[in-house]
């Protein structure tokens, strides 16, 4: 307590976690640029967790920018819109970083098209806003491990039916290398504040928190000045990885824990990241759909790193053609170094869940598992000490190896937030995160089967 007061850190931090090398220097001061669309886009018709969305266009049809091409008809499925003006060439399949053979709409690009600029009437209720967000096909913009990719409209509808006291805007950006949301705050800080105020009014929340890395002093000062007189309170937090996880934000800011298998609304809080808030604001003001993905392109194997708005469905090959990889490129990662997915080949396309594109050389890969086989667990306890949610990853891994699902469930494997720290620190190079996430998937499938059976 004294230490916190002495350092002016009134919020404190959570147990576990690590201060990782940030590696944000190359991109944090680069303004957001738009990448030009290539000749052909393959826009994936896929929503959260790989659920396919039904195409609502047919080959040969001309589409304009922002026109709906995939119809979402379920809480987890969001609509998909064309990022360009063009002609539908075919309904086919493509690969994404997360899945293979995903249905997609192949579009011959005729031009970038006009951004949707029609002013819309102010949304008068949360349901109205949720409907606009659903129409715009907005998903959470954070990294997958931090709840990214989830349909935002369904969350807003949930919030409308339940008591919500706190709105937390997540601008922590605790993942290494990623700077796009920080840039969004710098360039569209007023929009963020306005969006937060509008959402707070519709949600009728008591408190609005804007969680920012306290090390970014100038940004904190700037945001505090912009927030003066408004409902938003800037909360500078210690940026220990993975502070950006919604559960840990709730813990640190509100001194509450989201109950086991619960959601943030169970503790009367709604956590949204900055990118999502900006997308909601655009949808609310002008009905602009989500057609581009804001992503940081970084790493040591890229000549033109930066923060880019990338049209959905653009292949990694086309992205690389613009950002110029160096000859040392060894791996392309969609996402952060700890939670991102290695891109299997360059014909894979950018989706709504691609938070960053990292181009790493073998020297910077720091992935010892490419060279060394996992060794026996030495029970060093580093994974236990560093786990931000207090799990025993080595025990869950041991249970998973023998496929003792019941035991893994008793060890609360499904509490894991997938931050990847256990695998990061493991001196034996054990695939701890991988095992736990596999257990989670199995438990989920079993629960779904059970529900279907009932």
């Amino acid at each position, binding site marked *: 307590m004294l230490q916190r007061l002495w350092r002016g850190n009134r919020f404190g931090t959570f147990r576990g976690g690590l201060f*990782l090398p940030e590696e944000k220097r190359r991109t944090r001061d680069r303004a957001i640029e738009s990448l030009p669309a290539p000749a052909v886009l393959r826009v994936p018709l896929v929503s959260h967790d790989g659920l396919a969305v039904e195409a609502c266009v047919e080959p040969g049809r001309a589409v304009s920018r922002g026109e709906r091409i995939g119809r979402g008809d379920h*809480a987890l499925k969001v609509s998909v819109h064309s990022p360009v003006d063009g002609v539908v060439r075919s309904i086919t399949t493509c690969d994404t970083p997360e899945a*293979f053979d995903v249905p997609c709409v192949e579009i011959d690009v005729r031009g970038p098209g006009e951004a949707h600029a029609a002013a819309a009437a102010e949304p008068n209720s949360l349901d109205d806003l949720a409907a606009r967000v659903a129409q715009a096909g907005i998903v959470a913009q954070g990294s997958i491990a931090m709840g990214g990719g989830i349909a935002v409209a369904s969350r807003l509808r*949930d919030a409308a039916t339940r008591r919500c006291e706190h709105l937390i805007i997540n601008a922590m950006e605790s993942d290494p290398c990623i700077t796009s949301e920080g840039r969004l705050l710098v360039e569209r800080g007023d929009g963020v504040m306005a969006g937060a105020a509008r959402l707070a009014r519709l949600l009728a929340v008591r408190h609005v928190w804007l969680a920012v890395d306290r090390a970014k002093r100038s940004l904190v000062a700037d945001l505090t000045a912009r927030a003066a007189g408004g409902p938003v309170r800037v909360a500078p937090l210690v940026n220990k990885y993975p502070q950006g996880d*919604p559960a840990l934000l709730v813990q640190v800011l509100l001194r509450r824990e989201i109950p*086991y298998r619960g959601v943030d609304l169970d503790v009367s809080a709604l956590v949204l990241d900055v990118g999502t808030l900006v997308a909601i604001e655009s949808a609310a003001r002008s009905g602009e759909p989500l057609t581009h993905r804001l992503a940081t392109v970084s790493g040591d194997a890229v000549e033109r790193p930066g923060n880019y708005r990338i049209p959905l469905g653009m292949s990694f090959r086309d992205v690389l053609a613009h950002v110029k990889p160096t000859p040392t490129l060894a791996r392309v990662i969609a996402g952060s170094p700890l939670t991102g997915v290695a891109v*299997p080949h360059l014909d894979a396309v950018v989706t709504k869940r691609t938070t960053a594109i990292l181009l790493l050389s073998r020297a910077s890969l720091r992935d010892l598992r490419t060279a060394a086989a996992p060794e026996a667990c030495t029970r060093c306890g580093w994974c236990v000490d560093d786990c931000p*949610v207090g799990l025993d990853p080595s025990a869950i891994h041991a249970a998973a190896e023998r496929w003792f699902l019941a035991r893994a469930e008793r060890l609360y494997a499904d509490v894991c937030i997938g931050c990847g720290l256990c695998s990061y620190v493991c*001196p034996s190079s054990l695939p701890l995160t991988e095992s736990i996430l596999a257990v989670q998937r199995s438990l989920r499938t079993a629960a779904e089967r059970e529900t279907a059976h009932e």
Partner: protein
Amino acid sequence: MTDTFAMPGHESVPPVRRDAGEPRLLRAGPPPHWHGAGTVRSASWTWVAAALVVAAFGIVTWGRTAVGMIAISVATAVLTEAVLNGVLPRRIWAGSGSSGQAVLTGLLVALTLPPHVCLADWRVPVVAALLASGVGRALAGGYGNYLWHPVALARVGVELLFGAAFASQPGADAPFSVVGGLAALARDATPFEQPGRSVLTVLIRDYMPPWGQTLLPTVAAPEAWLGPLGGYAVGLVVAALLLVWRGHVRRSCVVWTMAAAMLTAMVLPIYEGGEPLWFPGFVIDAGLPVGFVYVLYHLTGGELLFVVVLLAGDSVSSPLTSRGQRWFGAGLGVLTIMLRRYGLVGSAGFWALLAMNTLVPLINWRMKRHIYGTRDASARGRRWLGRGRVPTA
């Protein structure tokens, strides 16, 4: 010009186009794509470096005897490990040769043995290293699985097997031996009783060597023998700093062990004329804080510091969590002093460590970290689909 390639591990993916000059990507592995600096190999060699610091003090003090004993012990441990790796169906330790675990085992075994035992019977270090590598580790299931620290087990084992050699140790039974002298206070303080003086004053003033010699041995003579491991305190402190800095030993374990040992030594009674004198750590006689010096002897003499720094911090045989390490350390400190004072065993620290190793599963079970979101037990029954706390709908 184009060619095709498929990513290893993704054979189900149809071959895709690769333009001329385009880099060939590495195997698409799972996250994380970064890894912390710590590896088993680096950890092993850090431990070896820490042990070598202590060994250097031993070599300076005991010369060729120490060098010979270390060489025999290390060679035996490495050979044992190599043979067992070849014979056993499953390798007891993946990459043991390179990771330095065999070297470390041999080195630690040598450091636990008094040099004079080796002179009395050359088989002692050989058998000790065999016990540590073969029995303590291989038969216990290999690295990562043993319950008792192999080196402590070997040390206790050879003491039982070669009692005569250990008894030949000069100074082992002498009243000025730190461990022997302090332990004597629990049983029979008659040799130190003088009219008008506390036994502590007499013991420290007339029988014990200066306390400074428990920190850094200055005389390599049998008369300066301070017990099996006395005299390496400075080396052990340096080793402890190195291991704590590198994160291989938790400072909570070291601090709690020493604090518990200090408190126990301060509180446990000594006997003066058959009457118990409680709180000997606070005794001040003729203006001298003899009680405090008595406690310092306990902390720096004997095997306590060695056990705390180089054995108790072993990750395999100690608790997983920092909270567990505190209780483990506290138990180790209390037990060591109690065994010194009231036990019948020679190497109190090693026995105390083995006893605490036995309790590690219990400590691990009781000292689990709080798991996020599980404070409210009534919430467990809810059958939400999805991945826990992060909303899916």
